[in-house]
């Protein structure tokens, strides 16, 4: 197929894109005892996917993405605790709105800077929210967070509780699928194309008259809203929320997930989240320190040798075998 035709068909669904969803549904029937863990994996995928939009596509390096995850997580928790608003689906919407609003407000001011200043500012924004959550103990529970939250039925129909793992899993899967559709649509639109342009060559995008800053702010806002949904799912699935949702280690964690999978490609978040979560599940409980050591060494190796993650390595292999050496 010629290059222009391939470009024009880029957004068409390919057969293998059904695989992750079929696998996820298959896992629902194959591992009924692991559905709580599966839900955590789905949440991590969504969080990493939201980061991919800003980091992988728009090229904005951030250390503060957990700010939006935490904003969503706390929104749902506070609504349930103080207002008795425990319907999960509308909770997700509220979380998306709050996180999106924070993303828009911070994006408008932060994205005027770049480089190290931007990195610092994203870090500061997250630390600011973390401190605010720590201080407003009356609303947020302070250092201890809000334990023992319970949520109502989804749309008043399906039971949703920490004990109902099956509905939880399917609910998270549905939320992930919807968010994925949004991201996919965005990425393959002309908007997504211009984001990639901004990432690759900022000056040229300015020169051709693209509204660079607005594009970045919109991508940042959408990504924040999606991260907020992931945070809200986290609170709903676990029935608690505490300061750990806002920390630097969560920001670094999701960065690692995305990098391991490969950034700037839609399915990198999936591969990275599954690989990371399964390894963590197997190793972290038994050998937490060795796990941390391995993680650190892996990151160093990825930064030095494999900048496109697991999928990137497969791509390189495929290219090598598809085209015989001249």
């Amino acid at each position, binding site marked *: 197929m010629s290059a222009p035709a391939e470009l024009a068909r880029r957004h068409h669904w390919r057969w293998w894109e059904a695989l992750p969803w079929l696998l996820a549904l298959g896992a629902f029937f194959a591992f009924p005892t692991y559905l709580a863990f599966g839900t955590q994996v789905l949440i991590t995928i969504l969080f990493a996917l939201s980061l991919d939009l800003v980091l992988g596509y728009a090229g904005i390096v951030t250390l503060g993405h957990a700010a939006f995850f935490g904003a969503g997580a706390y929104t749902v928790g506070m609504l349930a605790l103080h207002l008795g608003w425990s319907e999960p689906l509308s909770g997700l919407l509220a979380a998306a709105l709050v996180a999106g609003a924070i993303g828009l407000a911070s994006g408008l001011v932060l994205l005027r800077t770049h480089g190290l200043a931007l990195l610092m500012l994203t870090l*500061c924004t997250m630390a600011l929210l973390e401190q605010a959550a720590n201080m407003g103990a009356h609303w947020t529970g302070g250092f201890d967070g809000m334990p023992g939250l319970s949520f109502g039925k989804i749309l008043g129909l399906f039971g949703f509780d920490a004990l109902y793992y099956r509905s939880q899993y399917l609910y998270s899967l549905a939320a992930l699928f919807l968010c994925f559709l949004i991201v996919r649509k965005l990425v393959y639109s002309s908007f997504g194309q211009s984001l990639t342009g901004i990432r690759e060559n900022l000056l040229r995008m300015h020169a051709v008259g693209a509204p660079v800053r607005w594009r970045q702010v919109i991508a940042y806002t959408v990504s924040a809203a999606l991260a907020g949904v992931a945070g809200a799912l986290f609170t709903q699935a676990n029935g608690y929320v505490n300061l750990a949702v806002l920390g630097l280690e969560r920001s670094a964690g999701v960065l690692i997930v995305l990098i391991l999978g490969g950034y700037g490609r839609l399915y990198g978040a999936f591969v990275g989240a599954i690989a990371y979560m399964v390894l963590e599940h197997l190793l972290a409980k038994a050998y937490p320190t060795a796990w941390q050591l391995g993680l650190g060494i892996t990151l160093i190796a990825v930064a030095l040798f494999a900048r496109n993650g697991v999928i990137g390595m497969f791509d390189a292999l495929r290219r090598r075998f598809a085209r015989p050496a001249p």
Partner: protein
Amino acid sequence: MDLNSLVSMLLGGMAAGMVLFIVSVGLSVTMGLMGFVNLAHGAFAMLGGYAIVLTMKHWGLPFPAALLFGFVSVAAVSVVFERLLYAPLYRAGELDQVLLTIGLVFALVAAVTLSVGPETQAVQLPPWLSGQTDLGFMQYRTYSLVLIVAGTALMIALWLGFERTRIGARIRAAVDNRRMAQSMGVDVGRLFTLTFALGSGLAAVGGGLGAEILGLDPQYPFRYLAYFLIVVAVGGMGRISGVYFAAILIGILDFVLKIYFPKGGTLFIYALTLVLLLARPQGLFGRRGP
């Protein structure tokens, strides 16, 4: 509020600020020189702190000798890291640098936890440092006063080295315009290795000197990363006096705010940094880049 408590608050804040200065000054120069985002700088401070505390405990080294040992050993280790890990990524994007240095933090934190243990290490100050000194109008902790004097002396020494020696002139030239300096025959790579070693060694000394104030445990690099970065960002890259005043400012603010708003003090510092960086991305004392 009477004068004595005001003075003692200022001195306490200054002492904390000196620790921040000694740890962060190297970071400021290396980031200014290469534009390298080194998030692992705090990990070098932690390594130094451990080297200093453990040699005092197990080998019975006196405090000053332990500080010297910490400086030399961490400076040597950091050169190995710099040549093996940092050098290949000088021209890479920020993301790769962030990944590498965060990975290094994870690995070093885990390595220290594995080999020494997760508990907090207490530093045993020698008797001549742990008493009170009579200032004429009030008594104050000797150690804090020594920190203030030592930090200020270090600032003056570094400033003189920067402003009055050839190597200092080369570093300043390279910070201001790396390409121009290179084309004038300055070997920026070697300069960087040198300042990196010096900066990491100073961070190690800061880790040891500050163990009494900031504490020392394997989570140290994560806990104080934002603080070290804030000091550098406020002070401006590659500005020694800027980092000094920024560190004092933040040390005093932190100290005072923790007394009056025990819970919200840090919030205020982050908010101030945010506003400042938006208004002046080059920092309070930094010069605007070319």
